[in-house]
């Protein structure tokens, strides 16, 4: 069922203006899958995730993400805001905003007009084992573990069909990593989200539906 592909790539070439370039001949991901993309640091994980998010344009080929033909789009920002949740290694939150504003910022860009967004954010915080008081604390006052969990809440506030996560646990210790992964999986499964998580750390791969080493996907040009 071709309509069910969350990611459908045919022969794309992409890269930075003055940096390495890659070719990706074929990659298809069924919606609702959880994919673990393993690669050492510097192998081009972040670049590929940026391509999938529409932040880096492809030079040739077909790139369909959630049925959206990104290779034909110039402006991808509104689409990204509505359909993707993105979690980085760090720098997920604006330090000068409180947690609630950080979460609502994602809703703002997505033009999310749902009523009671703040309540929704509060519920997500409870699900992520974060005390409610944290909502009104500045992001800079949180611990790294707390910040990454707020990042999950931020990524989920618009109920996106797909989550992209780029080394989300590399700033966390083992306990925090386990918590983070458990919570992420719980919430993703509940929502039947597609999850694409990229990491160098093999140990994270345990509960994923599918493992895809990056080196199997792309060829440097």
């Amino acid at each position, binding site marked *: 069922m071709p309509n069910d592909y969350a990611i459908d790539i045919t022969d794309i070439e992409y890269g930075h203006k003055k940096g390495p370039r890659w070719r990706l001949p074929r990659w298809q991901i069924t919606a609702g899958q959880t994919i673990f993309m393993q690669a050492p640091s510097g192998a081009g994980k972040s670049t590929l995730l940026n391509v999938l*998010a529409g932040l880096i344009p492809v030079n040739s080929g077909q790139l369909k993400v959630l049925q959206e033909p990104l290779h034909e789009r110039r402006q991808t*920002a509104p689409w990204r*805001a509505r359909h993707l949740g993105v979690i980085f290694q760090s720098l997920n939150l604006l330090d000068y905003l409180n947690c609630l504003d950080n979460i609502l910022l994602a809703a703002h*860009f997505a033009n999310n007009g749902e009523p009671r967004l703040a309540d929704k954010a509060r519920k997500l915080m409870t699900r992520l084992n974060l005390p409610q008081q944290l909502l009104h604390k500045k992001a800079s006052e949180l611990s790294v573990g707390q910040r990454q969990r707020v990042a999950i809440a931020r990524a989920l506030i618009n109920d996106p069909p797909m989550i992209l996560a780029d080394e989300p646990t590399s700033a966390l210790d083992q306990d925090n990593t386990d918590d983070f992964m458990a919570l992420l999986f719980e919430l993703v499964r509940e929502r039947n989200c597609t999850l694409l998580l990229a990491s160098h750390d093999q140990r994270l791969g345990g509960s994923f539906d599918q493992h895809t080493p990056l080196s199997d996907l792309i060829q440097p040009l």
Partner: protein
Amino acid sequence: MMIRLAIKSLISRRFSAFVCIAMVALSSIALLTVDTLYRGTQSAFGRSVQEIDLIVGAPTGDINLLLFSAFQVGAPSREVSINTFTRWQQDPGVARAVPLMLGDSHKGFRVIGTDASMFDHMQAVLERDPFAQGNAFKHVFEVTLGHEVARKLGYQPGDELILSHGFGNHSFQQHKARTFTVTGILTASGTPIDKTLQVSLDGIEAIHWPPATLAALPAQLKIGENPALKPDSLAAFYLTLTNKVRTFQVQRSINQSEAEPAQAILPGVAITQLWSMLDWVEAALLGLGLLATMVAAIGVGSTLLTHLDKRLGEFQLLKTLGARHRFIFALLVIETASLVALGMLIGVTCTVLLERAMLSIAQSRWGLYWPLDIDWLWLGGAMLSLSLASGLLLASISTWQLKRRE
């Protein structure tokens, strides 16, 4: 959300924001103060010849006549006879004629020989009683003081003083034979009169008499009582006409007088000539003000652009969350424009307060007065457009820089 973001972002960088605001505020103060100073000087100049329609002296240059008669700078090369003065003093078209005898001084301050019409003139300029203390001289050996002279030398009515010949402070022959009694002190007027002493024409004539003859004069000699003390010539005199329309007519008839070669000038015109000679001062002042503004602009620009490096992650995050380029551009415009607008607002407020404060001091101490005419519409427009323009400029540079770093 955007404005909330801009405000919170600025608050999080409050130190550098404060520095930017201070730079903008200080440069606005500099620019506005330069303008006020210039206008103040101009108005003080104009005030010196207020209520004077014509200045008459022996033929010389317009500006020379203006300078020595109204500004007490320089000296007349020749004098005009008392007959010419009397002729015009008695003319029905003349409301007031103020005679001026120059050439003597007291401790570096110039002495003007004149008559009671000088105080009428001052009254007309000040629009109130020209005397802060005491009153006009009535006797030959009496003197009144300009505000500045009394303040600097600490004289009170009743004090006695000695006049000296020539304009210097030292080494000139002092007219020691007779002392003059202070009868009054003038209010500050902001004109060169503040820095002069005034005595009667008879008084000036008397001190130039040989000591022996002078000693024979009684102490309480009324002005005009001794016809021998009537001077032959004057340095210059002011004319105020009853009908201003006749000014050119009177000027022509003085300039073309058969009886004695004389020159009448319109002080306003002469001052305009003087200003046109000094227009480089305005240019220099304005240049300095603009320089201050440029320094501030570069300072603010470099501060904000330096911060850009630290904010790359922030912008990257905003883009990932789905912010369009124009959102980030608008954010930068709002941030910069609000900094500049706030700085200018503070600068203008400070300048207005400063000018108000300075004005009351200047008015009471030096009699200086200038109108604080602020064109709020113009100023508001300038503030709005300048802050928007700087915001747009800086945001353009910033987004260009960000593009380069992608």
